[in-house]
Protein backbone atom coordinates (compact mmCIF):
# COMPACT_ATOMS: atom_id res chain seq x y z
CA UNK A 1 0.00 0.00 0.00
CA UNK A 2 1.33 3.41 -0.96
CA UNK A 3 2.06 5.63 2.01
CA UNK A 4 0.18 8.91 2.26
CA UNK A 5 3.49 10.58 2.95
CA UNK A 6 6.82 8.80 2.59
CA UNK A 7 9.88 10.63 3.89
CA UNK A 8 13.12 8.86 3.00
CA UNK A 9 16.45 9.95 4.53
CA UNK A 10 15.65 13.63 4.18
CA UNK A 11 18.39 16.02 5.21
CA UNK A 12 18.18 19.78 5.03
CA UNK A 13 21.24 21.89 5.70
CA UNK A 14 21.47 25.64 6.02
CA UNK A 15 25.20 26.19 5.84
CA UNK A 16 26.69 24.01 8.55
CA UNK A 17 23.41 23.71 10.45
CA UNK A 18 21.44 20.54 9.80
CA UNK A 19 17.81 21.55 10.25
CA UNK A 20 16.82 17.99 9.38
CA UNK A 21 19.21 15.10 9.75
CA UNK A 22 18.33 12.00 7.77
CA UNK A 23 14.63 11.81 8.58
CA UNK A 24 12.72 8.64 7.73
CA UNK A 25 9.05 8.25 8.32
CA UNK A 26 5.90 7.01 6.64
CA UNK A 27 2.37 8.23 7.28
CA UNK A 28 -0.19 5.61 6.33
CA UNK A 29 -3.33 6.48 4.35
CA UNK A 30 -6.22 7.38 6.62
CA UNK A 31 -3.99 7.98 9.61
CA UNK A 32 -4.22 10.85 12.09
CA UNK A 33 -0.54 11.51 12.60
CA UNK A 34 1.13 13.87 15.06
CA UNK A 35 4.45 15.60 14.53
CA UNK A 36 5.72 16.97 17.83
CA UNK A 37 8.87 18.58 19.01
CA UNK A 38 10.21 21.68 20.70
CA UNK A 39 10.67 24.95 18.77
CA UNK A 40 13.44 24.63 16.22
CA UNK A 41 13.16 20.84 16.06
CA UNK A 42 12.56 20.99 12.31
CA UNK A 43 8.80 20.34 12.13
CA UNK A 44 8.02 23.29 9.88
CA UNK A 45 11.05 22.62 7.69
CA UNK A 46 9.85 19.05 7.20
CA UNK A 47 6.34 20.22 6.33
CA UNK A 48 7.76 22.81 3.92
CA UNK A 49 9.71 20.08 2.14
CA UNK A 50 6.60 17.89 1.92
CA UNK A 51 4.71 20.88 0.49
CA UNK A 52 7.44 21.67 -2.05
CA UNK A 53 8.11 25.08 -0.49
CA UNK A 54 11.63 24.14 0.50
CA UNK A 55 13.95 21.73 -1.26
CA UNK A 56 15.69 19.02 0.71
CA UNK A 57 19.48 18.95 0.56
CA UNK A 58 19.21 15.19 0.10
CA UNK A 59 16.62 12.47 0.39
CA UNK A 60 13.15 12.11 -1.12
CA UNK A 61 9.58 12.79 -0.15
CA UNK A 62 6.51 11.35 -1.87
CA UNK A 63 2.84 12.19 -1.33
CA UNK A 64 0.63 9.24 -2.24
CA UNK A 65 3.55 7.87 -4.22
CA UNK A 66 4.18 11.12 -6.14
CA UNK A 67 7.65 12.55 -5.66
CA UNK A 68 7.33 16.16 -4.50
CA UNK A 69 10.08 17.31 -6.87
CA UNK A 70 9.87 15.07 -9.94
CA UNK A 71 6.10 14.67 -9.91
CA UNK A 72 5.30 17.94 -8.17
CA UNK A 73 2.00 18.50 -9.94
CA UNK A 74 0.38 15.29 -8.73
CA UNK A 75 1.95 15.62 -5.27
CA UNK A 76 0.59 19.14 -4.79
CA UNK A 77 -2.88 18.21 -6.01
CA UNK A 78 -2.97 15.49 -3.35
CA UNK A 79 -1.87 17.78 -0.55
CA UNK A 80 -3.58 20.50 1.48
CA UNK A 81 -1.36 22.55 3.78
CA UNK A 82 -2.37 24.92 6.57
CA UNK A 83 0.72 27.05 7.11
CA UNK A 84 1.76 28.26 10.51
CA UNK A 85 2.23 31.90 9.50
CA UNK A 86 -0.96 33.91 9.46
CA UNK A 87 -0.82 35.03 5.82
CA UNK A 88 -3.64 36.61 3.82
CA UNK A 89 -4.21 38.66 0.70
CA UNK A 90 -5.59 42.04 1.81
CA UNK A 91 -7.29 42.84 -1.49
CA UNK A 92 -10.01 40.22 -1.31
CA UNK A 93 -12.97 38.90 0.67
CA UNK A 94 -13.09 35.47 2.28
CA UNK A 95 -15.13 34.01 -0.57
CA UNK A 96 -12.94 35.55 -3.25
CA UNK A 97 -9.89 34.12 -1.49
CA UNK A 98 -11.43 30.65 -1.58
CA UNK A 99 -12.66 30.92 -5.17
CA UNK A 100 -9.15 31.92 -6.28
CA UNK A 101 -7.57 29.10 -4.30
CA UNK A 102 -9.95 26.62 -5.96
CA UNK A 103 -9.06 28.02 -9.35
CA UNK A 104 -5.34 27.65 -8.67
CA UNK A 105 -5.98 23.92 -8.27
CA UNK A 106 -7.86 23.88 -11.57
CA UNK A 107 -11.36 23.87 -10.07
CA UNK A 108 -14.25 25.81 -11.53
CA UNK A 109 -17.71 26.06 -10.01
CA UNK A 110 -16.52 24.87 -6.63
CA UNK A 111 -19.15 26.99 -4.87
CA UNK A 112 -21.04 24.18 -3.17
CA UNK A 113 -17.93 22.79 -1.52
CA UNK A 114 -16.72 26.28 -0.59
CA UNK A 115 -20.08 26.93 1.09
CA UNK A 116 -19.76 23.71 3.01
CA UNK A 117 -16.23 24.46 4.17
CA UNK A 118 -17.31 27.97 5.23
CA UNK A 119 -20.23 26.50 7.16
CA UNK A 120 -18.12 23.88 8.90
CA UNK A 121 -15.52 26.42 9.97
CA UNK A 122 -18.10 28.93 11.18
CA UNK A 123 -17.18 31.41 8.44
CA UNK A 124 -20.50 31.72 6.62
CA UNK A 125 -21.34 35.11 8.12
CA UNK A 126 -17.88 36.41 7.18
CA UNK A 127 -17.93 35.15 3.58
CA UNK A 128 -18.17 38.62 2.05
CA UNK A 129 -15.92 40.37 4.58
CA UNK A 130 -12.55 41.65 3.45
CA UNK A 131 -9.66 39.59 4.80
CA UNK A 132 -8.17 42.70 6.39
CA UNK A 133 -11.23 43.13 8.61
CA UNK A 134 -11.03 39.66 10.16
CA UNK A 135 -9.69 38.88 13.62
CA UNK A 136 -6.65 36.64 13.95
CA UNK A 137 -8.76 33.60 14.80
CA UNK A 138 -10.99 34.18 11.78
CA UNK A 139 -7.97 34.55 9.50
CA UNK A 140 -6.72 31.24 10.86
CA UNK A 141 -10.03 29.62 9.89
CA UNK A 142 -9.67 30.97 6.36
CA UNK A 143 -6.20 29.41 6.17
CA UNK A 144 -7.75 26.07 7.03
CA UNK A 145 -10.48 26.61 4.44
CA UNK A 146 -7.92 27.47 1.79
CA UNK A 147 -6.11 24.21 2.43
CA UNK A 148 -9.33 22.25 1.94
CA UNK A 149 -10.79 23.83 -1.23
CA UNK A 150 -9.50 21.07 -3.49
CA UNK A 151 -10.52 18.23 -1.14
CA UNK A 152 -6.96 17.01 -0.75
CA UNK A 153 -6.63 13.37 0.36
CA UNK A 154 -3.68 14.36 2.56
CA UNK A 155 -4.02 17.35 4.88
CA UNK A 156 -1.12 18.85 6.82
CA UNK A 157 -1.82 21.33 9.60
CA UNK A 158 1.14 23.24 11.03
CA UNK A 159 0.08 24.48 14.47
CA UNK A 160 -3.47 25.32 13.37
CA UNK A 161 -4.61 26.16 16.89
CA UNK A 162 -1.72 28.41 17.92
CA UNK A 163 -3.23 31.49 19.57
CA UNK A 164 -6.75 30.40 18.79
CA UNK A 165 -9.74 30.48 21.15
CA UNK A 166 -11.36 27.39 22.61
CA UNK A 167 -14.41 27.66 20.38
CA UNK A 168 -12.40 27.48 17.17
CA UNK A 169 -10.34 24.62 18.50
CA UNK A 170 -13.52 22.65 19.13
CA UNK A 171 -15.04 23.56 15.74
CA UNK A 172 -11.82 22.84 13.92
CA UNK A 173 -11.19 19.49 15.54
CA UNK A 174 -14.67 18.20 14.98
CA UNK A 175 -14.37 19.11 11.29
CA UNK A 176 -10.88 17.65 10.94
CA UNK A 177 -12.00 14.48 12.74
CA UNK A 178 -14.86 14.16 10.30
CA UNK A 179 -12.50 14.58 7.35
CA UNK A 180 -10.30 11.89 8.88
CA UNK A 181 -13.30 9.53 9.28
CA UNK A 182 -14.14 10.14 5.63
CA UNK A 183 -10.70 8.87 4.69
CA UNK A 184 -8.47 11.94 4.60
CA UNK A 185 -5.02 11.47 6.04
CA UNK A 186 -4.21 14.12 8.64
CA UNK A 187 -0.78 15.27 9.78
CA UNK A 188 -0.75 17.67 12.68
CA UNK A 189 1.84 19.66 14.53
CA UNK A 190 0.75 21.33 17.73
CA UNK A 191 2.07 22.78 20.93
CA UNK A 192 -0.98 21.53 22.82
CA UNK A 193 0.02 18.02 23.74
CA UNK A 194 -3.40 17.16 25.05
CA UNK A 195 -4.68 17.82 21.52
CA UNK A 196 -2.15 15.43 20.05
CA UNK A 197 -2.95 12.84 22.71
CA UNK A 198 -6.68 13.09 22.03
CA UNK A 199 -6.48 13.15 18.23
CA UNK A 200 -3.41 11.37 16.93
CA UNK A 201 -3.14 7.63 16.43
CA UNK A 202 0.58 7.80 15.88
CA UNK A 203 3.19 10.33 16.84
CA UNK A 204 6.69 11.21 15.70
CA UNK A 205 8.77 13.32 18.03
CA UNK A 206 11.45 15.47 16.51
CA UNK A 207 14.38 16.99 18.28
CA UNK A 208 17.24 18.90 16.67
CA UNK A 209 16.31 17.62 13.24
CA UNK A 210 16.10 13.95 14.21
CA UNK A 211 13.22 11.58 14.89
CA UNK A 212 13.66 10.64 18.55
CA UNK A 213 10.44 8.66 18.89
CA UNK A 214 7.98 7.21 16.42
CA UNK A 215 5.21 5.06 17.77
CA UNK A 216 1.50 4.80 18.39
CA UNK A 217 0.22 7.27 20.93
CA UNK A 218 -0.80 4.39 23.15
CA UNK A 219 2.64 2.76 23.04
CA UNK A 220 4.32 6.09 23.78
CA UNK A 221 2.12 6.55 26.82
CA UNK A 222 2.83 2.97 27.91
CA UNK A 223 6.52 3.82 28.05
CA UNK A 224 5.71 5.71 31.19
CA UNK A 225 3.41 3.05 32.48
CA UNK A 226 2.10 3.11 35.97
CA UNK A 227 1.06 6.01 38.12
CA UNK A 228 2.50 9.32 39.08
CA UNK A 229 2.10 10.46 42.65
CA UNK A 230 2.86 13.91 43.97
CA UNK A 231 3.45 14.35 47.71
CA UNK A 232 3.78 17.49 49.75
CA UNK A 233 4.97 16.48 53.20
CA UNK A 234 6.31 17.95 56.43
CA UNK A 235 9.26 15.97 57.77
CA UNK A 236 11.69 13.66 55.95
CA UNK A 237 10.21 11.01 53.69
CA UNK A 238 11.37 7.46 54.51
CA UNK A 239 13.82 5.75 52.09
CA UNK A 240 11.17 3.24 50.99
CA UNK A 241 9.22 6.18 49.56
CA UNK A 242 12.18 8.07 48.16
CA UNK A 243 13.21 5.09 46.02
CA UNK A 244 10.26 5.91 43.75
CA UNK A 245 11.26 9.54 43.43
CA UNK A 246 11.69 10.84 39.88
CA UNK A 247 11.53 14.59 40.36
CA UNK A 248 11.01 17.40 42.82
CA UNK A 249 9.05 20.54 42.00
CA UNK A 250 8.34 23.50 44.29
CA UNK A 251 8.83 21.46 47.43
CA UNK A 252 6.64 18.60 46.18
CA UNK A 253 8.08 15.19 45.47
CA UNK A 254 7.08 13.37 42.30
CA UNK A 255 7.02 9.56 42.50
CA UNK A 256 6.53 6.94 39.81
CA UNK A 257 4.69 3.85 41.00
CA UNK A 258 4.34 0.66 39.01
CA UNK A 259 0.97 -0.44 40.42
CA UNK A 260 -2.00 0.96 42.33
CA UNK A 261 -1.19 -1.08 45.46
CA UNK A 262 2.05 0.92 45.79
CA UNK A 263 -0.09 3.94 46.69
CA UNK A 264 -1.17 2.35 49.94
CA UNK A 265 2.40 1.24 50.70
CA UNK A 266 3.69 4.81 50.27
CA UNK A 267 0.97 6.25 52.47
CA UNK A 268 1.58 3.66 55.17
CA UNK A 269 5.34 4.23 55.08
CA UNK A 270 4.80 7.98 55.48
CA UNK A 271 2.45 7.46 58.43
CA UNK A 272 4.93 5.04 60.06
CA UNK A 273 7.75 7.57 59.64
CA UNK A 274 5.64 10.31 61.21
CA UNK A 275 5.43 12.44 58.06
CA UNK A 276 2.47 14.77 57.88
CA UNK A 277 1.08 14.95 54.34
CA UNK A 278 -0.24 18.35 53.27
CA UNK A 279 -1.19 17.29 49.78
CA UNK A 280 -1.39 14.09 47.74
CA UNK A 281 -2.17 13.74 44.06
CA UNK A 282 -2.29 10.53 42.02
CA UNK A 283 -2.58 10.44 38.20
CA UNK A 284 -1.51 8.72 35.02
CA UNK A 285 1.46 9.81 32.93
CA UNK A 286 0.35 11.93 30.00
CA UNK A 287 1.94 12.77 26.69
CA UNK A 288 3.59 15.79 28.20
CA UNK A 289 5.59 13.60 30.55
CA UNK A 290 6.59 11.33 27.68
CA UNK A 291 7.49 14.34 25.61
CA UNK A 292 9.62 15.84 28.35
CA UNK A 293 11.31 12.56 29.04
CA UNK A 294 12.17 11.95 25.38
CA UNK A 295 13.09 15.45 24.33
CA UNK A 296 14.92 16.62 27.42
CA UNK A 297 18.66 16.36 27.57
CA UNK A 298 19.59 12.93 29.07
CA UNK A 299 22.49 14.42 31.06
CA UNK A 300 20.21 16.99 32.63
CA UNK A 301 17.62 14.34 33.37
CA UNK A 302 20.10 12.29 35.32
CA UNK A 303 21.20 15.30 37.31
CA UNK A 304 17.65 16.21 38.30
Amino acid at each position, binding site marked *: MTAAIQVSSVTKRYGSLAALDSIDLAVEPGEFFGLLGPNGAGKTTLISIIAG*LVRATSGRVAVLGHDVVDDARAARLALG*VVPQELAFDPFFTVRETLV*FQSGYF*GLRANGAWIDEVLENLGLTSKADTNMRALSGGMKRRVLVAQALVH*KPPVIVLDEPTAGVDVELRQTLWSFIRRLNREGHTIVLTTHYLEEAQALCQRIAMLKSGRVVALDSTRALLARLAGLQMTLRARGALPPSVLQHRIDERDGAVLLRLSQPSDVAAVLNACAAAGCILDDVEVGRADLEDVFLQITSDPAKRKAA
Partner: protein
Amino acid sequence: MSTTNAGLADIRPGVPVAASAESSAAVAFRTLLVKEMLRFWKVSFQTIAAPVLTSVLYLLVFGHVLEEHVEALPGVSYTSFLVPGLVMMSVLQNAFANSSSSLIQSKIMGSLIFVLLPPFSHWQLFGAYVTAAVVRGVVVGVGVFAITAWFAPPSFAAPLWSLAFAILGAAMLGALGLIAGIWADKFDQLAAFQNFIVMPATFLSGVFYSVHGLPPFWQGVSHFNPFFYMIDGFRYGFFAQSDVNPWISLAVVAGAFAVTCGIALALLARGFKLRN
Protein backbone atom coordinates in the same frame (compact mmCIF):
# COMPACT_ATOMS: atom_id res chain seq x y z
CA MET B 1 -18.33 19.62 -17.53
CA SER B 2 -16.54 18.64 -14.38
CA THR B 3 -18.03 16.73 -11.51
CA THR B 4 -17.13 19.39 -9.00
CA ASN B 5 -20.64 19.93 -7.77
CA ALA B 6 -21.52 16.28 -7.44
CA GLY B 7 -22.59 15.31 -3.95
CA LEU B 8 -22.82 18.26 -1.62
CA ALA B 9 -21.92 16.26 1.46
CA ASP B 10 -19.31 14.19 -0.30
CA ILE B 11 -15.99 15.07 1.24
CA ARG B 12 -14.26 11.83 0.56
CA PRO B 13 -10.72 12.42 -0.60
CA GLY B 14 -9.78 12.17 -4.19
CA VAL B 15 -8.96 14.66 -6.82
CA PRO B 16 -12.44 15.81 -7.77
CA VAL B 17 -12.04 18.25 -10.53
CA ALA B 18 -11.73 19.08 -14.11
CA ALA B 19 -12.24 16.95 -17.16
CA SER B 20 -8.60 16.84 -18.22
CA ALA B 21 -5.21 18.02 -17.03
CA GLU B 22 -5.18 20.50 -19.87
CA SER B 23 -8.39 22.23 -18.93
CA SER B 24 -7.52 22.37 -15.24
CA ALA B 25 -4.21 23.99 -16.16
CA ALA B 26 -6.15 26.56 -18.18
CA VAL B 27 -8.47 27.23 -15.24
CA ALA B 28 -5.47 27.69 -12.95
CA PHE B 29 -3.80 30.11 -15.34
CA ARG B 30 -6.96 32.12 -15.89
CA THR B 31 -7.64 32.32 -12.16
CA LEU B 32 -4.18 33.68 -11.38
CA LEU B 33 -4.46 36.16 -14.24
CA VAL B 34 -7.86 37.40 -13.07
CA LYS B 35 -6.60 37.66 -9.49
CA GLU B 36 -3.56 39.65 -10.60
CA MET B 37 -5.75 42.01 -12.63
CA LEU B 38 -8.28 42.46 -9.82
CA ARG B 39 -5.41 43.22 -7.50
CA PHE B 40 -4.61 46.46 -9.31
CA TRP B 41 -8.19 47.14 -10.36
CA LYS B 42 -9.36 47.17 -6.74
CA VAL B 43 -6.91 49.96 -5.98
CA SER B 44 -7.24 51.65 -9.36
CA PHE B 45 -7.16 55.12 -7.89
CA GLN B 46 -3.57 54.46 -6.95
CA THR B 47 -2.57 52.15 -9.80
CA ILE B 48 -4.32 53.84 -12.74
CA ALA B 49 -5.57 57.32 -11.85
CA ALA B 50 -2.36 58.41 -10.11
CA PRO B 51 0.03 57.62 -13.00
CA VAL B 52 -2.41 59.22 -15.47
CA LEU B 53 -2.37 62.42 -13.42
CA THR B 54 1.44 62.39 -13.24
CA SER B 55 1.69 62.16 -17.02
CA VAL B 56 -0.80 64.95 -17.53
CA LEU B 57 1.27 67.17 -15.23
CA TYR B 58 4.39 66.40 -17.29
CA LEU B 59 2.52 67.35 -20.43
CA LEU B 60 1.18 70.59 -18.99
CA VAL B 61 4.51 71.73 -17.58
CA PHE B 62 6.95 70.60 -20.27
CA GLY B 63 4.53 71.18 -23.11
CA HIS B 64 3.87 74.72 -21.96
CA VAL B 65 7.50 75.60 -21.32
CA LEU B 66 9.05 73.99 -24.39
CA GLU B 67 6.32 74.27 -27.01
CA GLU B 68 7.80 77.46 -28.51
CA HIS B 69 11.44 76.40 -28.32
CA VAL B 70 11.72 72.82 -29.45
CA GLU B 71 10.87 71.05 -32.66
CA ALA B 72 11.88 67.48 -32.00
CA LEU B 73 10.58 66.07 -35.27
CA PRO B 74 10.11 68.10 -38.44
CA GLY B 75 6.55 69.39 -38.78
CA VAL B 76 5.45 68.02 -35.38
CA SER B 77 4.64 70.35 -32.47
CA TYR B 78 6.46 69.63 -29.21
CA THR B 79 3.26 68.80 -27.33
CA SER B 80 2.24 66.36 -30.05
CA PHE B 81 5.72 64.86 -29.91
CA LEU B 82 5.56 64.53 -26.15
CA VAL B 83 2.21 62.70 -26.02
CA PRO B 84 3.38 59.31 -27.34
CA GLY B 85 6.53 59.51 -25.22
CA LEU B 86 4.49 60.04 -22.06
CA VAL B 87 2.01 57.34 -23.01
CA MET B 88 4.77 54.81 -23.57
CA MET B 89 6.64 55.85 -20.44
CA SER B 90 3.46 55.23 -18.41
CA VAL B 91 2.92 51.88 -20.10
CA LEU B 92 6.46 50.76 -19.27
CA GLN B 93 6.65 52.04 -15.71
CA ASN B 94 3.27 50.64 -14.76
CA ALA B 95 3.93 47.25 -16.32
CA PHE B 96 7.09 47.06 -14.21
CA ALA B 97 5.32 48.31 -11.11
CA ASN B 98 2.56 45.73 -11.43
CA SER B 99 4.51 42.50 -11.48
CA SER B 100 7.24 43.71 -9.13
CA SER B 101 4.94 45.13 -6.46
CA SER B 102 2.58 42.16 -6.61
CA LEU B 103 5.46 39.79 -5.95
CA ILE B 104 7.23 41.75 -3.26
CA GLN B 105 3.95 42.45 -1.48
CA SER B 106 2.89 38.82 -1.41
CA LYS B 107 6.41 37.81 -0.38
CA ILE B 108 6.41 40.21 2.56
CA MET B 109 2.79 39.51 3.55
CA GLY B 110 3.46 35.78 3.28
CA SER B 111 0.54 35.29 0.89
CA LEU B 112 2.85 34.10 -1.89
CA ILE B 113 2.47 30.68 -0.28
CA PHE B 114 -1.04 30.45 -1.78
CA VAL B 115 0.53 30.55 -5.23
CA LEU B 116 3.45 28.29 -4.33
CA LEU B 117 1.33 25.46 -2.88
CA PRO B 118 -0.85 24.80 -5.95
CA PRO B 119 0.60 22.95 -8.94
CA PHE B 120 1.54 25.94 -11.11
CA SER B 121 4.24 25.48 -13.71
CA HIS B 122 6.81 28.23 -14.15
CA TRP B 123 5.24 29.02 -17.52
CA GLN B 124 1.85 29.57 -15.94
CA LEU B 125 3.26 31.86 -13.26
CA PHE B 126 5.26 33.79 -15.83
CA GLY B 127 2.32 34.07 -18.22
CA ALA B 128 -0.15 35.28 -15.59
CA TYR B 129 2.14 37.87 -13.97
CA VAL B 130 3.41 39.25 -17.26
CA THR B 131 -0.01 39.36 -18.92
CA ALA B 132 -1.46 41.22 -15.93
CA ALA B 133 1.49 43.64 -16.15
CA VAL B 134 0.79 44.24 -19.86
CA VAL B 135 -2.90 44.84 -19.13
CA ARG B 136 -2.11 47.36 -16.39
CA GLY B 137 0.46 49.11 -18.60
CA VAL B 138 -1.94 49.32 -21.52
CA VAL B 139 -4.87 50.49 -19.37
CA VAL B 140 -2.76 53.30 -17.90
CA GLY B 141 -1.40 54.09 -21.37
CA VAL B 142 -4.90 54.36 -22.80
CA GLY B 143 -5.87 56.62 -19.88
CA VAL B 144 -2.88 58.90 -20.44
CA PHE B 145 -3.56 58.98 -24.16
CA ALA B 146 -7.26 59.76 -23.74
CA ILE B 147 -6.50 62.79 -21.61
CA THR B 148 -3.38 64.10 -23.33
CA ALA B 149 -4.99 63.73 -26.76
CA TRP B 150 -7.26 66.52 -25.64
CA PHE B 151 -4.25 68.87 -25.48
CA ALA B 152 -2.74 67.86 -28.81
CA PRO B 153 -4.90 66.30 -31.53
CA PRO B 154 -3.40 62.85 -32.08
CA SER B 155 -2.26 61.48 -35.39
CA PHE B 156 -2.29 57.79 -36.25
CA ALA B 157 0.14 57.31 -39.09
CA ALA B 158 0.78 53.62 -38.41
CA PRO B 159 -1.11 52.56 -35.25
CA LEU B 160 -0.21 48.86 -35.48
CA TRP B 161 3.40 49.78 -34.80
CA SER B 162 2.38 51.58 -31.65
CA LEU B 163 0.33 48.62 -30.51
CA ALA B 164 3.16 46.18 -31.17
CA PHE B 165 5.69 48.30 -29.26
CA ALA B 166 3.30 48.94 -26.38
CA ILE B 167 2.59 45.25 -25.86
CA LEU B 168 6.13 44.02 -26.39
CA GLY B 169 7.60 46.81 -24.27
CA ALA B 170 5.09 46.21 -21.47
CA ALA B 171 5.81 42.48 -21.60
CA MET B 172 9.54 43.13 -21.30
CA LEU B 173 9.00 45.44 -18.33
CA GLY B 174 6.53 42.97 -16.80
CA ALA B 175 9.21 40.27 -17.03
CA LEU B 176 11.81 42.66 -15.61
CA GLY B 177 9.43 43.45 -12.75
CA LEU B 178 9.07 39.74 -12.12
CA ILE B 179 12.85 39.38 -11.91
CA ALA B 180 13.12 42.37 -9.57
CA GLY B 181 10.27 41.10 -7.42
CA ILE B 182 11.84 37.65 -7.13
CA TRP B 183 15.27 39.10 -6.32
CA ALA B 184 14.22 41.75 -3.81
CA ASP B 185 13.61 40.78 -0.20
CA LYS B 186 12.52 44.21 0.97
CA PHE B 187 10.57 47.13 -0.42
CA ASP B 188 13.62 49.40 -0.41
CA GLN B 189 15.59 46.98 -2.59
CA LEU B 190 12.76 47.06 -5.08
CA ALA B 191 12.59 50.85 -4.83
CA ALA B 192 16.32 50.99 -5.60
CA PHE B 193 15.79 48.84 -8.69
CA GLN B 194 12.97 51.13 -9.77
CA ASN B 195 14.71 54.44 -8.99
CA PHE B 196 18.19 53.61 -10.22
CA ILE B 197 17.46 51.42 -13.23
CA VAL B 198 13.92 51.73 -14.53
CA MET B 199 13.38 55.45 -13.97
CA PRO B 200 16.68 56.66 -15.48
CA ALA B 201 16.37 54.26 -18.40
CA THR B 202 12.86 55.47 -19.25
CA PHE B 203 13.68 59.13 -18.66
CA LEU B 204 16.82 59.01 -20.79
CA SER B 205 15.13 57.17 -23.62
CA GLY B 206 13.87 60.13 -25.61
CA VAL B 207 10.50 60.62 -23.95
CA PHE B 208 11.09 64.37 -23.73
CA TYR B 209 13.42 64.89 -26.68
CA SER B 210 14.64 63.39 -29.92
CA VAL B 211 18.06 61.83 -29.52
CA HIS B 212 19.07 63.67 -32.71
CA GLY B 213 19.22 66.77 -30.55
CA LEU B 214 21.81 65.18 -28.24
CA PRO B 215 25.60 65.48 -28.51
CA PRO B 216 27.07 62.52 -30.47
CA PHE B 217 28.38 60.79 -27.33
CA TRP B 218 24.99 60.70 -25.65
CA GLN B 219 23.35 59.72 -28.92
CA GLY B 220 25.66 56.72 -28.93
CA VAL B 221 24.87 55.90 -25.31
CA SER B 222 21.14 56.09 -25.99
CA HIS B 223 21.49 53.37 -28.59
CA PHE B 224 22.42 50.91 -25.83
CA ASN B 225 19.21 51.64 -23.97
CA PRO B 226 16.40 49.28 -25.01
CA PHE B 227 13.87 51.79 -23.69
CA PHE B 228 15.00 54.21 -26.38
CA TYR B 229 13.89 51.75 -29.07
CA MET B 230 10.55 51.20 -27.34
CA ILE B 231 9.76 54.91 -27.23
CA ASP B 232 11.10 55.56 -30.71
CA GLY B 233 9.19 52.67 -32.24
CA PHE B 234 6.01 53.55 -30.38
CA ARG B 235 6.26 57.14 -31.60
CA TYR B 236 6.76 55.92 -35.17
CA GLY B 237 3.18 54.66 -35.02
CA PHE B 238 1.99 58.23 -34.50
CA PHE B 239 4.09 60.21 -36.96
CA ALA B 240 5.65 57.63 -39.28
CA GLN B 241 8.94 59.33 -38.38
CA SER B 242 11.59 57.98 -36.07
CA ASP B 243 15.25 58.19 -35.13
CA VAL B 244 15.78 54.52 -35.96
CA ASN B 245 14.17 52.23 -38.51
CA PRO B 246 11.16 50.69 -36.66
CA TRP B 247 12.08 47.17 -37.77
CA ILE B 248 15.44 47.53 -36.08
CA SER B 249 13.72 48.89 -32.96
CA LEU B 250 11.29 46.00 -33.00
CA ALA B 251 14.15 43.51 -33.25
CA VAL B 252 15.99 45.16 -30.34
CA VAL B 253 12.86 45.22 -28.15
CA ALA B 254 12.04 41.62 -29.03
CA GLY B 255 15.63 40.68 -28.16
CA ALA B 256 15.41 42.48 -24.81
CA PHE B 257 12.12 40.73 -24.11
CA ALA B 258 13.63 37.35 -24.97
CA VAL B 259 16.48 37.96 -22.52
CA THR B 260 14.30 39.08 -19.59
CA CYS B 261 11.82 36.33 -20.42
CA GLY B 262 14.58 33.73 -20.31
CA ILE B 263 15.96 34.99 -17.00
CA ALA B 264 12.52 35.23 -15.37
CA LEU B 265 11.55 31.72 -16.51
CA ALA B 266 14.84 30.28 -15.31
CA LEU B 267 14.43 31.90 -11.89
CA LEU B 268 10.85 30.62 -11.59
CA ALA B 269 11.81 27.12 -12.72
CA ARG B 270 14.65 26.96 -10.20
CA GLY B 271 12.47 28.45 -7.50
CA PHE B 272 15.20 31.04 -6.87
CA LYS B 273 14.44 32.77 -3.54
CA LEU B 274 10.92 31.32 -3.72
CA ARG B 275 11.58 27.68 -2.84
CA ASN B 276 14.90 27.78 -1.00
